[in-house]
């Protein structure tokens, strides 16, 4: 496959756009889809593929934020920190508790030339945990 090695670590795309979704965002989307199907059919489970069902189960289980407003807030807050899309999503998914853990999960936030010092990262993590508290 030209231009992309199988499984290579993601970089920002050729198009300059990256649209990545966190588990909690996908949960909102898939649950909504499932509800639509429930309204249209007596047997919604039969209408969805295995891929859909397994993915829905997964994102419901591994979403740190359940409330759609909280989910929006998480995206909004993380967007203020000049993160690449995938960095934003890994942080939103794994919710590291310390700066050290955040850097371990997303090493690229600490690479040379990035504006993220420990203080900024700590503030970001605090903001995220506040959303969780008031969810």
């Amino acid at each position: 496959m030209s231009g992309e090695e199988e499984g290579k670590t993601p970089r920002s795309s050729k198009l300059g756009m990256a649209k990545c979704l966190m588990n909690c965002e996908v949960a909102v989307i898939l649950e909504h889809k499932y509800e639509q199907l429930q309204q249209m059919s007596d047997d919604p489970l039969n209408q969805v593929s295995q891929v859909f069902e397994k993915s829905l189960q997964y994102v419901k289980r591994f979403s740190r934020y359940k409330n759609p407003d909280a989910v929006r807030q998480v995206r909004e807050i993380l967007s203020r920190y000049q993160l690449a899309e995938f960095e934003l999503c890994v942080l939103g998914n794994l919710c590291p508790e310390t700066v050290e853990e955040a850097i371990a999960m997303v090493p690229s936030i600490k690479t040379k030339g990035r504006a993220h010092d420990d203080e900024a990262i700590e503030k970001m993590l605090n903001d995220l945990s506040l959303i969780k508290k008031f969810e």
Partner: protein
Amino acid sequence: MNFWLFLSLIAEMWKTEMFLKVQLPWNVIIPAECLDAKGLMLQRSIIIRLLDAFSNKKATQELGYFLAVTTLENIGEGKVRQHSGDVLFPVVFSCVTFKLFRGEILDGVVHKVLKHGVILRCGPVENIYLSCQKMPDYRYVPGENPVFLNEKLSKIEKDVVVRFIVMGTKWLEAEREFQALVSLEGDYLGPLSD
């Protein structure tokens, strides 16, 4: 008249990890006999065929697993296909897909414990292999419910959630699915209390 669906997939992929929101152009073919239908019926017919094909496609190497269509952006003008009389409608829609990338850290669930490692599941991916060589300090404990145990008595057994890093992925064309090799080598990786 031929009653078949032709799909041409040209993906503009935004390369990131895990769940991708992708905008795709696809071609949906409507056989000539369905074209008598009025506007809305025709549109419905196009959408149904699209959703069906989308679901059946399951996954591609470039985009990963196809989860759901989110928005129908545009249905273009139909073009008559000369030999069959069917009409091809170019459709652009947005959808969500799932793909694993090397270097990514995420959570999965242990499905099976074997002597040399464990099989994990993560979303639609069912074939994730964590070798015992990539589980530093864990040793295999056989039994009716085999587990991997470390000195601190941290347990890796069936249904446990494990945080891992992806070492590599492989696309299996025949099965239309991905496999992955993962590791626990790194800080903050390993079993989690759910």
